[in-house]
């Protein structure tokens, strides 16, 4: 199934020995020199050498057996866990592969590539939350210099975000992939889903007209990621002419225009989306967000609509709270921000806004409590900051961290 990312997957993970090709080569030579010694002593050295030789000879079942025996003797053998994990992965034995990578990470907890491989296994096992966490940890710690691995990891991260309905994050990740030159239809389709806010389970069948629209929207987003904004805009304009009633197309185009700072044109698209789909919460939120700090009182009216349409959406309450606060309406801001808080959103931003609103309404104790929570959450979100494969720096997510957008993004309400 496409949504499992069949085609963009790691093609060649079976052989690399990331910790010591030279060492492995020596072992193979040593093994060849005594290949007739079939009754080798079952020492770790002998078992590991035979395991590597079997792996290199593509005798994978033998290799698995030998690796397991060698690892039983020396559980800290990182290269062994890596090889075992990658063999299992190639055999589609994801449970076993995940087990091997977890053991690898016990021995080498800073191994970003190990986390990435674990995440790919968890992806295949439909353990989405764990997979996302593992992939992000891997990216934060840094991967080996392998472009295909980077792209695979990013792609799967994008798919996981799509599955969770985190369309903005998915779009960002997939756009990054597009900037790296991955401009194929798979990436474009995923980008189209992100732009049009379509969950993988709702993807129309292949060859359908709807799927074609999604793909073309994704191509437009791909072009934008590659700084070919005008070409992308042309595609969107064609799509809107051909399928003006396609759900979310105006909102997607509006968001596209916003990124290019064409605010008035973007607002026109959001309005058209609402005209087509009066319950299109995302368009209301986009319009409200545009007004923040500019005309927050006007923006609050759109956010109020979003809250009315989707009262369970914490982000709508949060945004409305910000807009009220920015309009000097602190009492109403507190009400909205507390609504968001009741959704158990553990997000530093929310508590900062709460602390400010409490402070301005004279609730000093509540303000102090919100400030303390803000500081606590802020410190949690500022983990190790090391360069990663992006060449940028992303905070390491805590083990239990849920991305805030996972529960606050507006979900499609067709």
């Amino acid at each position: 199934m496409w949504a499992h990312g069949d085609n963009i997957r790691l093609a060649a993970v079976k052989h690399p020995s990331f910790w010591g090709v030279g060492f492995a080569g020596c072992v193979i030579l040593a093994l060849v020199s005594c290949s007739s010694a079939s009754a080798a002593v079952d020492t770790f050295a002998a078992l590991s050498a035979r395991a590597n030789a079997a792996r290199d000879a593509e005798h994978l079942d033998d290799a698995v057996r030998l690796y397991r025996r060698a690892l039983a003797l020396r559980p800290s053998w990182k290269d062994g866990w890596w090889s075992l994990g990658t063999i299992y992965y190639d055999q589609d034995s994801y449970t076993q592969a995940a087990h091997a990578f977890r053991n690898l990470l016990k021995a080498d907890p800073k191994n970003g590539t190990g986390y990435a491989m674990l995440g790919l296994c968890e992806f295949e096992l439909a353990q989405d939350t764990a997979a996302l966490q593992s992939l992000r940890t891997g990216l934060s710690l840094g991967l080996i210099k392998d472009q295909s691995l980077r792209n695979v990891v990013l792609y799967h991260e994008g798919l996981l975000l799509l599955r969770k309905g985190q369309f903005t994050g998915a779009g960002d990740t997939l756009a990054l992939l597009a900037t790296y030159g991955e401009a194929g239809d798979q990436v474009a389709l995923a980008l189209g889903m992100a732009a049009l806010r379509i969950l993988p389970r709702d993807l129309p069948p292949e060859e359908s007209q709807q799927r074609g629209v999604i793909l073309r929207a994704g191509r437009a987003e791909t072009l934008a990621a590659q700084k070919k904004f005008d070409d992308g805009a042309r595609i969107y304009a064609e799509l809107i002419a051909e399928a003006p009633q396609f759900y979310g197309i105006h909102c997607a185009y509006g968001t596209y225009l916003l990124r290019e700072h064409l605010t008035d044109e973007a607002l026109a698209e959001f309005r058209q989306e609402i005209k087509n789909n009066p319950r299109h919460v995302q368009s209301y939120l986009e319009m409200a967000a545009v007004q923040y700090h500019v005309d927050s009182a006007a923006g609050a009216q759109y956010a109020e609509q979003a809250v009315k349409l989707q009262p369970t959406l914490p982000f709508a309450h949060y945004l409305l709270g910000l807009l009220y606060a920015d309009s000097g309406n602190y009492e109403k801001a507190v009400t909205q921000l507390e609504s968001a808080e009741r959704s158990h959103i553990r997000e530093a931003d929310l508590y900062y806004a709460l602390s400010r609103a409490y402070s301005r309404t004279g609730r000093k104790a509540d303000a102090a409590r919100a400030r303390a929570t803000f500081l606590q959450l802020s410190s949690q979100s500022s983990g190790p900051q090391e360069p990663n494969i992006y060449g940028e720096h992303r905070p390491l997510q805590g083990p239990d961290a849920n991305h805030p957008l996972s529960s606050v993004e507006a979900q499609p309400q067709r």
Partner: protein
Amino acid sequence: MRLATRREMLRWLALGLPACAARASFGATPHAAWQGTVSKGGLFEIVPPSVSGISWRHSNGRSPEYYLPETTGAGCAFLDYDNDGWMDIYLVNGGKCDFYDPQPPLHNALYRNNRDGTFTDVTEKAGVAGGGYGMGVAVGDYNRDGLADLYLTQYGRSILYRNNGDGTFVDVTEKAGVAAPGWASSAVWFDYDHDGFLDLFVCRFVDFDRSKNVFCGNTQSGERYYCVPRVYPPAQSWLFHNNGDGTFRDVSKESGIARVLGKAWGVVATDVNNDGWMDLFVANDTLPNFLFLNREGKFEEIGLDAGVGYSPEGHARSGMGVDSADYDQDGWQDLFVANVDQEMYSIYHNNHDLTFDDMAGPFGVGRTTRLLSGWGAKFFDYDNDGNLDLFLANGHPDDKIEVHSSHVKYQEPLLLFRNTGKALEDVSATAGPVFAQSFAARGLAIGDFNNDGATDVLVSVNGGAPLLLKNCAAAGNHWLGVRLIGKKSNPDAIGARITWQAGDLKRSRLKVGGGSYLSSHDPREVLGIGPRTKIDRLEIRWPQPGGRTEIFTDLAVDRYVTIVEGSGSLAP
């Protein structure tokens, strides 16, 4: 200084929209219509090197290794080093350090004002060439001898130059004990403990040296760009207490300054709670800004509680340039901080209760600056109408930014916001050709180099020639230039409160310390009164330990005067 993270929850909230600003007005004080005339060259005109004689250029030593200091300097200053009443110019350069060994060696520059619009390089004679990798400069009379001394901040070790009074300076750093090893950025002179001597606060940026340089860039291609400072550990800034005998004592710990670690770029000494004790507002990069509240000589950091540490959405930003002024004349000092692109700059309005509200959105400053990165920043009354305007020097820190962004440029335009008495209005588009150009601007100093009462601007450019901008905007409006000399109070009168009245116009101004980025300013205050032709009343409230108030009446205008604390008289 940082790139926007991809996952900021509300990064898309700030997209601009030209619209009305519901709260974008302040004050109800009478406002004189702007009387200035726009010269052919605009409100500010570039004085080219061929005219000024300032041929010096900044060298950043940009290397393939992309050492972060390369893109962050340098500062500049207006000062009157020879006490002739004319503003001279000091320019800070890169130089020899652990990652750079320029040949021939680079030097800073001191230009003496020839009083005819030209300047002469007197660096060698004065002995203020520097010698390390220079960052910024702070000017102050630390030894109360009536002469402007120079504190030069550097990456590595900073330098205190004592003014000998004969056109030369001497390096007294070691004796004074203010070397501040590490990466020093902005510095400010102010009297934090009311003993009448100028103390020294020195911003320290990150814990960095050549061996700690982090690779930031594309690991596949090896292409580098300048790191977001987040990758480097924070550091404590310094506070040096002036012992009054030519030496200083590091009181960073006992004063409370060292209790928090930052990545400090800009600093301004101001008084946010009107208690007479000068506070410090410090811009941090990728960390919350600090507001050090001075509680009778001990500092308490209240940035978070005050609402100036973070963006309105609770994000630490990349603070660089800062300033403080009472822009709306409500009697309370407001704050300004410039950030990097996508973050918007902030104008924090003082709520009179140690809290602030960011008015950048309502004033349109946010929308205007959303794609810009700001360094030099100063409130001053460019058209002498009595209202404090705002001048900003911008430029993205990453020279590769245009590879990654289609909207953000490495070189960026200057910005000028005019204070209408009700709002800050972006007048850059009509302010002249210089505002249509783009620069890698960093430091910004204000000063009236031609003594015409119109405050001019000096902008330092990373890897380029400085910009000397002559103010042509104040013609037709009247003014009084005031130089304050403290006798019992600190000699530079930092913390003095100046109040003046001309007809229906009443204004008040706190003489702040420092402000902007890596730069130092004309010590004189130009008091604009618009079309009014005399000042009815001028009140000087000297800072402690002097603390007295002196009042002068019926003053002729369009001239500079010197007021010596306790003398009760004005001198030309």
